[in-house]
């Protein structure tokens, strides 16, 4: 589903964010990406959503080389990727319904279809009763779930999450992760960047670890999680 081949990214100014990163996430897989802040997690996600382009190497999604995607096509690529952000990126002056409906409005769904799908998505994240509220009136966990509803409302085959549990307590974080598991069960590939190691430790998922832009572990090795990173 996501494949990196010898990817390096150097920002203008010489800061090297990624060095020869290689990995492959299979379709339908759920995986975590971890590492210190500044290790290159965000850069890696940005390369997948084409907010940045790699300096060297290839990024492929479903076998398609993203370097062949022109600027005009990026919008269409993003419709295939559900993205979830630590800062939610919700529109605070719109209702929950409008926020979740946004991707469908952009894609030109009919009014009826939009209402149906938004209700279904909010049902999944358990916010059916908050549909007319403003995101401002919701708690942090609820706001994050609105963001998730928006990411999945057009049923993308791939979900990317950047620190989705960043500001949440462990219980709420677990709820969010359970949601991702549900989507994964339904066949969606899920790729989550987080530095919440406690959360990862409680689950047996493939974990990719970045350190100073290099991929240092890939797999279910648990030792690094406690020893190597946070000493």
């Amino acid at each position, binding site marked *: 589903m996501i494949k990196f081949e010898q990817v390096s990214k150097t920002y203008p100014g010489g800061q090297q964010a990624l060095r020869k990163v290689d990995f492959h996430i299979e379709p339908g897989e759920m995986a975590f990406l971890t590492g210190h802040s500044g290790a290159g997690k965000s850069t890696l996600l940005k390369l997948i959503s084409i907010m940045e382009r790699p300096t060297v190497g290839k990024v492929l*999604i479903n076998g398609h080389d993203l370097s062949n995607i022109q600027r005009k096509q990026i919008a269409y690529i*993003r419709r295939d990727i559900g*993205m979830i952000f630590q800062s939610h*990126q919700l*529109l605070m002056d719109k209702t929950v319904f409008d926020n979740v409906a*946004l991707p469908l409005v*952009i*894609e*030109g769904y*009919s009014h009826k279809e939009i209402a149906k799908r938004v209700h279904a998505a909010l049902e999944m994240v358990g916010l059916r009763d908050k549909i007319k509220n403003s995101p401002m009136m919701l708690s942090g966990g609820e706001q994050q779930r609105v963001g998730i509803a928006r990411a999945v409302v057009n049923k993308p085959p791939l979900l990317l999450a950047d620190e989705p549990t960043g500001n949440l307590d462990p219980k709420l974080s677990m709820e969010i992760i359970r949601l991702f598991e549900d989507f994964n069960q339904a066949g969606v590939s899920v790729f989550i960047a987080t530095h919440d190691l406690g959360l990862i430790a409680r689950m047996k998922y493939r974990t990719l670890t970045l350190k100073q832009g290099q991929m240092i572990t890939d797999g279910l090795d648990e030792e690094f999680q406690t020893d190597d990173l946070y000493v």
Partner: protein
Amino acid sequence: MSILFKGRVQGAQIAQISAAQRIVMFFVSHVRQALGSLGELWRSRTSSFMTIGVLGLSITLPSTLYVMVKNAEQVSSGWEQASQISLFLKEDASKSDVDQLLKRIQLWPEVDTIEFISADKALDEFKQLSGFGDAITYLDENPLPNVVLVTPTSRHAGPTAARLLLEKLKGEREVDIGKLDIEWLERLHGLLNVVKELVTVIALLLFLAVVLIIGNTIRLNILSKKDEILVMKLVGATDAFIQRPFMYTGFWYGFLGGVLAWFAVTILLWWMSSSIKTVSALYQKNFDITGLNFSTFMLMLAVSIFLGLSGSLLSVRRHVREIEPK
């Protein structure tokens, strides 16, 4: 259709709707965005009204000048019709020669009426009107020539046609000098042309200023919605989709500015009509100023909308493109 995932349908394709329905949906969504932009203008009405005011008044000035020039042209074309040719006859032309000449000219198709003023009659008139009175009696002989006033038919009253007629009349044996009294008219025309060009230049400068002002206003609109645009881009909105509401904002600025300009011009003309009436009464001319007719109004509206759209196009392209999620 998705680029990355073969077989995955995106958007409206999933709903099995006919092409006709899709076209209807296209217009429905456009109307919705247009009304949305109008609502947006209403929510920030103070600043919107200022922009619309700038646009409207910038169009009012050239429009009013245009109406004035058009009216002046109309008035002067009315005068043109009355242009007369004065023929001063040779002194040695005998009475019968003159009679012959009058008869001949009268038959020309270009000539409407002729009036013969004999030298004696002219001297009498001069005595009465000039105030020299008795002084003239001391003259040995009448220094004035016989004069024929020729009024061309309306078809030959225009400056060039009248000039041709003049040349033809000058060719007559009895005629000494011919004079076409339209030089002042030509001067007036020249002046009007200068004014017209001035109006065009002023209009172009104002229009350019309007485009820049609207461009800047839309730029500020875009920047104030930066967060929203970022989110829209993150969830897959194309630049065209994001640009559309701003284009509609430009459209509404233009439309409302055009309507405002029409009101302003109408009020201005109404205000000035009484003073214009006084002037035309002094010249003993019955003259009503022609205001804006429907087609002029439509032209104003079209220009105004064009300015609004080009202003927004100017900034929308660049600034929507510039905002990219980082």
